[in-house]
């Protein structure tokens, strides 16, 4: 196949600069001017908007080192006792206290409404869905995403997962649905399930339990502090496709 340069004469102003030359030109610009210039590549990559209620979830902001991204699937991975469920409740509290509605797809049937209310969750804004198998959980999560909930959490419970880990195609489908709506979708799992379909994956490490006797013989559990072991972000996002 012949290239254009061999078939047609070059344009009057010369050939366009190569990518390396363009990058060099941008780096020589003042920082303030550089923020105004966008290449076609950055324009093609869709911008990620933060959830407006991110400020109410300090634990999440610390783990993500930034705001919660909308139109994203965030995978939260942690073994039992590493503080995963506490983070789920913090997320639900942040959304519901900001007058947003939230949905919790609770595969393990783990929610205690009393403790959720104590954690700050406004229960009248929370839709609690209690599936019994992974297939049901995925289907109900997708249905909920299409409804317009700004915060949807799929908590897969404790291992072993009922119904297996799901296929890559199922998680990719869920990620695409999340991309099509202004929603923060969090998949909380004891091990990695979504893989490359997730925009971001947070893996928790051993949590630190703080007991306090306060001068009494009986110690009191005061707090369980989750620790981040690793955060992984996908280098390329799944292409935005029309999801019916």
């Amino acid at each position, binding site marked *: 196949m012949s290239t254009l340069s061999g078939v047609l004469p070059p344009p009057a102003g010369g050939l366009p600069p190569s990518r390396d030359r363009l990058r060099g030109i941008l780096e020589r610009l003042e920082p303030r001017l550089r923020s105004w210039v966008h290449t076609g590549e950055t324009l093609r990559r869709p911008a990620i908007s933060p959830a407006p209620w991110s400020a*109410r979830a300090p634990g999440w902001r610390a783990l993500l080192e930034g705001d919660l991204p909308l139109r994203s699937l965030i995978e939260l991975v942690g073994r*039992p*006792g*590493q*503080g*995963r*469920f*506490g*983070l*789920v*409740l*913090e997320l639900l*509290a942040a959304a519901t*206290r*900001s*007058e947003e*509605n939230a949905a919790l797809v609770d595969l393990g*049937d*783990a*929610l*205690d*409404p*009393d*403790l*959720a209310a104590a*954690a*700050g969750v406004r*229960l009248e*804004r929370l*839709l*609690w*869905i*209690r*599936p*019994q198998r992974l297939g*049901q959980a995925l289907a*109900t999560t997708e*249905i*909920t995403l*299409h*409804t*317009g909930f700004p915060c949807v959490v799929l908590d897969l*419970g*404790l*291992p072993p997962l*009922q119904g297996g880990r799901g296929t890559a195609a199922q998680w990719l489908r869920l990620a695409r649905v999340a991309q099509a709506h202004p929603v923060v979708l969090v998949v909380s799992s004891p091990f990695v399930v979504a893989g490359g379909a997730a925009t971001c994956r947070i893996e928790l490490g051993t*949590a*630190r*339990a*703080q*007991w306090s006797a306060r001068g009494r013989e*009986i*110690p*009191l*559990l*005061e*707090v*369980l*502090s*989750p620790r981040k072991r690793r955060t992984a972000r996908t280098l390329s996002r799944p292409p935005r496709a029309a999801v019916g």
Partner: protein
Amino acid sequence: MARMACACVPLFPLAARLRAEPELRSEAVAIVEGNGPTARLLTLSRVARRYGLRPGMTLAQARSILSGLIARPRDAACERSALEALAEAAERLSPRFELDPRGLAYLDLEGCLERFAQHDRPEQELALVLEREIDRAGLPARVGIASSRLAARLAAQGARSGSPQIVPCGQEGTFLAPLSLARLDPTFDIAQTLHAWGVRTLGDLARLPVEEVTARLGEEGRKLAWLARGRDPSPLVPSEPPRLPSEGMSLEWPLASLEPFLFLARAALDRLIGRLEAEALGCVRLELELELEPAGRDRRTLDLPAPMRDRKTLLELVRWNLEARPPGAPVSGFTFFAHPDRPRAAQLGLFAPPELSPDRLATTLARLFALLGPDRVGSPRPTGAHRPGAFELLPFAPPPVQGSPEEGSLPPRRAGLLAVRCLRPPVPIEVHLDPRGRPARLEATSTPTAEPSARSSSRGRISPPPSHPPLEGRVRVASGPWWLEELWWHETPMAREYWDIELDSGLIARTYREHKNGLWFADGLYD
């Protein structure tokens, strides 16, 4: 003089049938009465009449002329639905209307013409609007307006589509005079007597003195005399609008498989939802009555979480219901009944976050109910019980957005989190105590739980066994005992001794010992 409008649906049994089967509108169709060799044509479509078929012919005769004639019996369900639709259309124009099972609706127009006062001919405009409303309900209509019911009916029967006939006030006698006596539909004896008197038209009857006619023909004669003069002998008897809109039909042959039935059910649901939409109502409960072959009925109810109008979701719910509980016999007819209610309204705010669309939310909840069962979807609430993990599920109905949330409503900030992941049902464990009676070691047990099991779901399936990590190891920290007692007056009181236990694996479990039998369980994990 009170003005009356009459909406007449010509060939009502045929119109009702074609409303349920619109694909037959361009075909040669006949409504048949009777069975076997005595079956006779009652009404015919225009296409059938072009072939020379006439009412009163036997079906065999008609088929010998036109072999492709589509014959349908009279369908009470279709006619009932058509009458309901006619009533709803009439009610939109007048609160007082009377229905006639022959496909007629009489409307009292007192106070109803003010709406059209800005038009040159208000009655004409009202008649056209009435015709359009009935047409939207899937029925052809002819409209007449006069000061008596008979005059209005005859005016309607003489009108054409798009050209209602208005009889000016006080001229009913003139309008009725040239019409044949048969239009009054008198009894045979009275018709014979009047014929013998030389009375042929309504005008002839109107010229006779009422008292003399009454003396010779009785009460029936008196009514006919007043009718011929253009006066109503009895007042309008208002009909009530249907409380439960219904749509259905009798099937040509019994159906035993689901897909053909759903094809017909979809059309009926479309008509039913269309009627609810016209009234800005949604369906909060859908009932389905099936007529079974050879005899019997099957009635089932679908409760919806919120008023909704999504046809696709309703059809899916009907499908799942029939798949889960088949009727057990072929279906020869069906009727849908919709319980109407006002849909939820949403008021958006400029500065507040967007609310969920009520229609979409209702559809979602209905689909979740159908997938999981109503006891597994909702808004959780604590019950106020002392027992940890107790909850009740309420229908999810988020409150309207008040505005920007205040900063003061944020929970107090802490260095970490404290949350418990409930284990439902509680997991039996074996606990070894130290000399002071405090837990020292946990071991896993294979003993079946003594707690009531929640393994069967509302959809009749056995739920999978619960998942939990192995709860065994040396106890690093034990916090307790925390005594909990509940329902002491009950025949099964609850008395437990709670311990928070940290194992050397790092897991922190919430455990308890039952006082009644000394068994240990874990009902939560700090996570």
